[in-house]
């Protein structure tokens, strides 16, 4: 890629909106010289299905035919329907091919002249594609995540340079407040309010942290966003830095996401090279640096105070709040912690204005939300919808419902602090308040569908086991309570529990919920409470009849006290 003339003079630094325009025009010119562009998804799911080999063989096929000048084969991002990986998109035309093997390269290249390869074609008029609203996953898959020019060509960095050169920090915060954006990490705290608290704090040093720990099992939205839009996350963090008067940012990302780590590190280097991170951004006084910190497999480190201890190099133990990180966070300085998706929403808000964002969603929950749809549902993958969309629409229209003629039983949202929502509430709109009133939780966006092959007591036991293992051990209600609850749930699934045990379980739920130190313990009883609320009959079947209605704890109709072999 050639650098535009006048940028060379500034060592490739991009300092104003004109520079962005020049690059965007260059990219448009490049694009217009190409007849075709072929995007091969390089996300985790597609790579696990050998999409790198597909990329190689497509590239080879094009070059043996001497077509490099008019056909570009490039890595792309997630298309969402990960169940059908590996995925390839051909532009213009937008044909989406699924399950592409390296051996299909010749047919795909032939198709540029002869028309789509029918046997590989995905129906993009299906609700899975048409019923989504793409804001966080804008230009899905059609930007090379490793090229900053690709990002700039679709409007990248206009937000940051507008903020730094045309708006005061206060005005930036005002836009974020007007947008009504709420934290996407789970609790839904108003982002504008959090920003203004940190902005008001007086300190020489402030920090901006991006929470990319995504510990909820069954959630992979943040991974996908980091893999596909690393520059946008960095742009959001830099805008926050400008608004708050912070000069240093950290991305705390779990080590289980090697590809996301690689992409964000590459993006940091790229942004630095172009002067979009580092000293004197846009030739102003504003400087902002970002470093990556790796998690190491502890769920509790997603909790903000534990995350801070971890960045400081210690064990991830949470601390009582107040003081909140906004007043005293990393190394005792005011610190902003937001989720990956929260930051991803910032650049479009600055670019299009807060009012634009506030038009999407419901009265109290603005914007869109990405969900990781998985479990017993036909179209597993990443989906994005406006807040307020019903669960039914996501699971049955977009998700295509439960496969193999099974019956929908419940959907689990909110991770280990969330709950299971049964069929009778499928028409509830998804927003922070209504999920909470149903005994669940927005969480970061995992949505695991369960059908008649899942036992709800087993599911409750699964989450309690998770919390007992992940409890950091600092406070007693969580450390001891979760183990007791797991033991009782274990007894229930092996048919050895009595009604007194059930009463004790309910009592423990209450105690752990209200006396634990951090959100891990406070949320741990939720899966039990919600399954007790909606599926008490299943508990009773285990305790009184010694039967597991779903046939999980023992075969159907078999006494669970004589457990059958799982195989």
């Amino acid at each position, binding site marked *: 890629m050639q650098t535009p003339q006048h940028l060379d003079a500034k060592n490739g630094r991009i300092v104003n909106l004109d520079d962005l325009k020049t690059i965007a025009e260059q990219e448009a010119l490049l694009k217009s010289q190409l007849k075709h562009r072929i995007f091969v998804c390089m996300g985790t799911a597609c790579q696990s299905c050998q999409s790198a080999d597909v990329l190689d063989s497509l590239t080879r096929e094009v070059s043996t035919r001497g077509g490099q000048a008019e056909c570009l084969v490039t890595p792309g991002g997630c298309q969402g329907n990960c169940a059908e990986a590996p995925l390839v998109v051909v532009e213009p035309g937008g044909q989406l091919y699924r399950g592409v093997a390296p051996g299909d390269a010749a047919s795909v290249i032939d198709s540029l002249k002869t028309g789509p390869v029918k046997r590989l074609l995905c129906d993009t008029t299906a609700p899975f594609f048409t019923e989504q609203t793409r804001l966080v996953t804008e230009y899905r898959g059609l930007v090379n995540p490793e090229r900053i020019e690709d990002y700039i060509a679709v409007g990248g960095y206009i937000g940051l340079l507008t903020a730094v050169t045309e708006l005061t920090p206060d005005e930036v915060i005002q836009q974020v407040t007007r947008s009504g954006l709420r934290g996407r990490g789970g609790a839904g705290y108003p982002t504008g309010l959090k920003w203004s608290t940190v902005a008001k704090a007086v300190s020489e040093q402030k920090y901006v942290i991006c929470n990319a720990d*995504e510990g*909820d099992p069954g959630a992979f939205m943040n991974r996908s966003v980091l893999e596909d839009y690393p520059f946008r996350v960095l742009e959001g963090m830099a805008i926050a830095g400008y608004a708050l008067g912070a000069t240093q940012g950290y991305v705390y990302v779990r080590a289980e996401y090697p590809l996301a780590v690689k992409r964000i590190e590459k993006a940091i280097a790229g942004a630095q090279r172009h002067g979009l991170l580092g000293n004197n951004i846009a030739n102003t006084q504003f400087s902002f640096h970002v470093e990556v910190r790796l998690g190491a497999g502890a*769920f509790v480190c997603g909790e903000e105070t534990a995350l801070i201890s971890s960045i400081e190099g*210690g064990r991830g133990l949470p601390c009582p709040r107040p003081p909140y990180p906004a007043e005293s966070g990393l190394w005792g300085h005011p610190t902003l912690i937001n989720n990956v998706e929260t930051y991803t929403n910032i650049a479009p808000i600055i670019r299009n204005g807060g009012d634009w964002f506030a038009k999407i969603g419901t009265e109290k929950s603005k914007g869109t939300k990405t969900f990781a749809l998985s479990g017993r549902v036909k179209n597993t993958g990443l989906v994005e919808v406006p807040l307020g969309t019903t669960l039914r629409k996501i699971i049955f229209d977009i998700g295509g419902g439960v496969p193999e003629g099974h019956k929908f039983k419940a959907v689990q949202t909110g991770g280990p602090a969330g709950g299971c929502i049964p069929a009778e509430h499928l028409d509830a709109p998804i927003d922070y308040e209504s999920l909470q009133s149903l005994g669940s939780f927005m969480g970061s966006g*995992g949505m695991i569908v369960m059908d008649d092959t899942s036992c709800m007591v087993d599911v409750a036991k699964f989450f309690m086991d998770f919390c007992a293992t992940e409890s950091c051990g600092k406070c007693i209600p969580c450390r001891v309570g979760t183990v007791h609850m797991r033991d009782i749930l274990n007894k229930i699934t092996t048919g050895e529990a009595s009604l007194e045990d059930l009463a004790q379980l309910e009592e423990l739920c209450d105690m752990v919920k209200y006396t634990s130190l951090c959100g891990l313990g406070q949320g741990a009883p939720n899966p039990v409470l919600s399954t007790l609320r909606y599926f008490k009959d299943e508990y009773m079947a285990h305790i009184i009849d010694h039967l597991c209605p779903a046939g999980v704890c023992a075969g159907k109709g078999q006494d669970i006290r004589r457990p059958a072999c799982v*195989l």
Partner: protein
Amino acid sequence: MNSAAPSLPSSSQNVVAAPSDDKRWRIVGATMRRYGFAPSALIETLHTVQNSFGYLDTQSLRFVARSLKVPLSKAYGVATFYGIFRLKPHGEHTCVICTGTACHIKGAAKLLATIDRCANIRDAETTKDNKLSLVTARCFGACGIAPAAIVDGQVIGNLSPETMEELVRRCLKS
């Protein structure tokens, strides 16, 4: 709470000598240097040690603790708090089975049972011939293709017990 800033450079004159002249210690040294030997670089450094040597032993913990001037007890505490760090080496092959929610619903337990049957190992165990180690993880973000596993660094999705058995047999043979 530690009040030192992250980039506070400590004097480089008293750099601790590496335990041996194994070249991999240089990579470890480079990580510590990158963070100015700050105590807060502990987790990053342990990651580098594990990536270079495969696991953390007493010798490497001692070296890192002395280099970063943190008590050995703290280094040990961190190494044992975080699930990713291991104090024992893995076998020739490593299989990580996801036991996250989506994989649980889609039958991760059957995969574990298959491995137990074919290789006679459970979570965090290694076969006697040192060929295969089994570990479990809680979700690595491949929930769209659950149940998933990572075999020798490669993510594999939509696993059936039959494919699992084939993968295990291949590891045990090679």
